[in-house]
């Protein structure tokens, strides 16, 4: 097993392509985008099924990288999160096949 950094970014759906470009530009080998169902934050409640525009939908992006790549990604995500609704968390994980990350 090998140690890597897992980045979990919850961000509004309209910004996920920008976030994806950041991950790719900073050297992430890959990432996965998952739809979020509902949530609450900053006094506002939202749910996927209630807004036909989808403008308030949120997604989660998960990416596992080595610490140096993760730090470069986080530095760029900071700017993105200044503009868009979202949160990011980082955790240390153990992975099989380190060459994939």
């Amino acid at each position: 097993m090998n140690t890597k950094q897992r980045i979990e970014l919850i961000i509004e759906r309209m910004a996920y392509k920008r976030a994806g470009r950041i991950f790719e530009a900073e050297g992430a080998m890959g990432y996965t985008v998952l739809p979020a169902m509902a949530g609450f934050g900053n006094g506002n409640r939202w749910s996927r099924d209630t807004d036909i525009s989808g403008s308030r939908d949120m997604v989660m992006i998960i990416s596992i990288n080595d610490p140096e790549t993760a730090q470069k990604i986080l530095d760029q995500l900071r700017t993105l999160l200044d503009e868009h609704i979202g949160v990011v968390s980082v955790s240390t994980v153990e992975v099989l096949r380190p060459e994939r990350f």
Partner: protein
Amino acid sequence: MTVPEAFAKGLAFYLMMAIGLKGGVEMSKNALSFDVIAIFVAGIAMSFAIPFIAFRLLRATSNLDTVNAAAAAAHYGSISIVTFVAATEAVRLSGFESSGHLVALAALMETPAIISALLLVQRQDGAQAVAGAERGELLREVLLNASVVVLVGALIIGWVIGEEGNTKIAPFFVSPFQGVLCLFLLDMGLSAGRGLRQGWRQLDAATIAFGLYMPLVSALIASVVCALLNVGPGDATLFITLSASASYIAVPAAMRLALPKAQPSVYLTLSLGLTFPFNVTLGIPIYTFLASLVT
């Protein structure tokens, strides 16, 4: 109760296809004339101009800052395709005729308002207020969003197939139309109620009032424009409705890219929670009356 997301989007897709086809078929029977081009130019001008009026009203009367006022104003310069669809049914039931060109105008009036909102923010707060340099993505969202693509695509198809082709697809796109519209308006009513319940506390009284009077302001301006143009009562009703409606599908999505610091709870509560139900219940009858006065 919520209608499943995919089902609601399917209903919206069907309605846009159906209205686009209908408009295209009508257009195939009525040649493009100077009067029609004049309506198009007037509509695009309205879409550009209304956000500036709405912005001034919001800044003068409410506590909204520049970015939120501009984002909200953009919604009122754009159009609600569902309100337009409801208005076409009202026009038909009133016995008026419409030329079909107004469907094309609906597509044309979707996007100029977004440009106006960006100009408003840049003028007031400088270019930093507009997010990033992702102009390509914003341009794609603005010009190629699902509403515009389906509407324009169906319009072209309807124009090409004409009345003869329409007869063959009528059992799917014409006969069920009213029933599908009822279902979709049910879902939109539920969405509007939820949005209003969740969002109204974040709006001051002046902003709430704006959501109710701004459609009437736009309608009056559009009525004056119709009086100057050579349009029939059916087309005038639709033109006034387009001008008085507010977007809650395409523009909210574009605003998340263009003005991400604007709060969706403000502009969505206004356009979906207040203006949409007002237009569908009271607005369309008012606009039909105004159209009959000026034509």
